[in-house]
């Protein structure tokens, strides 16, 4: 295991951050607009989000680069700015974190499924290599490959990031199949753990999905297959739409209580995904400090 990860795990569970996109929308990001270019256009606002998670108690914060692969940016005709968007995203989180938190660069899916031939493997690998290198230049301490549903895509991203030598966390999104323990592509936690570790991931995990309680079984299976503490970032349940706005019924308190159950089944890193905010992380931090897990 990478020494950076080992050091962090001395005080497990390690607290990570929550959702970013909705935080930026609260700061004026138009609906439907990609968040990643804000690293160049509104770095102060992005840094506010990062700083809010550090203040909430996150020991690892991510970067506003989830959708910043050149493949995905190409949808917005911004592929040629991928390097500077990633570099800036890393630098912004780095500045917000100071020496209070580690910064792991977020790498999300490209929107293409390589395992069914949507995208050429070399092109995909090149895009992830470029993104990982730019994040490293911007000063990240590691990488989080997240919200992947196609194992082949996650493996490509892990391989691309692995060359850099920083620690790598690799997460898929589960929720399909019986008991929601497969990805929509049919991958099991065991298959994912094996392939992602083989590709060079230090830690495997799960993010997004229906909520902390539904995630427990996947975390347990990932932990058994991986033999290592697992990364877990759950959604605040599924949203209802009220007057055109997504409302999550899970409160910061209930979210924190449910997340605090996950270390018992093998989670070593805890955080939030869709529907969460700094307040959720703060509640979770309070519980962890009190040892309520």
């Amino acid at each position: 295991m990478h020494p950076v990860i080992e050091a962090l795990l001395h005080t497990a569970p390690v607290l990570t951050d929550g959702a970013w996109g909705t935080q930026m929308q609260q700061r004026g990001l138009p609906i439907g607009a990609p968040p990643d270019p804000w690293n160049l256009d509104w770095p102060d606002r992005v840094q506010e989000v990062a700083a809010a998670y550090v203040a909430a108690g996150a020991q690892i914060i991510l970067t506003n680069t989830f959708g910043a692969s050149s493949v995905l940016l190409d949808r917005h005709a911004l592929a040629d700015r991928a390097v500077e968007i990633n570099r800036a995203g890393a630098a912004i989180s780095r500045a917000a974190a100071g020496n209070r938190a580690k910064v792991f660069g977020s790498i999300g899916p490209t929107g293409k499924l390589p395992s069914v031939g949507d995208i050429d493997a070399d092109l995909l690998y090149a895009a992830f290599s470029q993104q990982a290198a730019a994040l490293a230049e911007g000063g990240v301490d590691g990488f989080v490959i997240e919200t992947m549903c196609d194992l082949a895509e996650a493996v490509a991203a892990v391989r691309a990031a692995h060359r850099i030598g920083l620690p790598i966390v690799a997460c898929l999104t589960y929720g399909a199949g019986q008991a929601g323990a497969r990805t929509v592509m049919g991958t099991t936690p065991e298959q994912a753990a094996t392939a992602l570790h083989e590709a060079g991931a230090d830690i495997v995990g799960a993010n997004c999905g229906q909520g902390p309680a539904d995630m427990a079984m996947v975390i347990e299976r990932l932990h058994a297959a991986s033999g290592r503490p697992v990364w877990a970032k759950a959604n605040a349940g599924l949203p209802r739409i009220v007057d055109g706005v997504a409302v999550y019924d899970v409160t910061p308190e209930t979210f924190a209580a449910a997340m605090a159950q996950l270390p018992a089944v093998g989670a070593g890193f805890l955080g939030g995904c869709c529907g969460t905010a700094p307040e959720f992380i703060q509640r979770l931090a309070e519980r962890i400090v009190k040892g309520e897990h």
Partner: protein
Amino acid sequence: MADLQALYTAVLEGNKNLAAETTREALDEGANPEELLQKYMIPAMDEVGRLFEENEYFVPELLISARAMKAALEYIRPKLAETGAKPIGKVVIGTVRGDLHDIGKNLVAAMLEGGGFEVIDLGVDVSPEKFIDAAREQGAQVIAMSALLTTTMPGMKSTVEALTNAGLKGSVRTMIGGAPVTQRYADDIGADAFSDNASGAVRIARQLVGA
């Protein structure tokens, strides 16, 4: 003689080349295109849908079967057109305004085609006006909308409203789906139907067109 059971199996197992080849051979031998479609290909896709809902098949299996179906349809369609046979319905499909996610939408489009529909795919970031203009111009009975983001879901509501304002509500039915979309949301905005998966989408589309 072409082995028509092999056509069924080829679609079921996603063997694109075999599906296309068997279809071509059967048509050369004078097989009725409507019969190939109704007796072998659509039942195979229905079985694919069933296996998906039973958690035997996942997205990759769905996609390769849909591709095999599409390859066979390339031969069937021109012949069907000659006989004047009509598809069971026309669906205009797209991802709503502000949303660029197309994996789910493409999957539903492929399954609808496999289920015997003519599908007009408007792509992503589709405005209410574009949905309605296309439905009107193409004479579609159904508008199918997809969204991945909670923030873009209101585009579904706008489209249903625009349909009402255009006086087409009722004659053009709406169906919606996507990760954050629920039956409750469909009820709230007055969409006619909802499915949480691509296979169910075929079933509800058939209900909507009375097929």
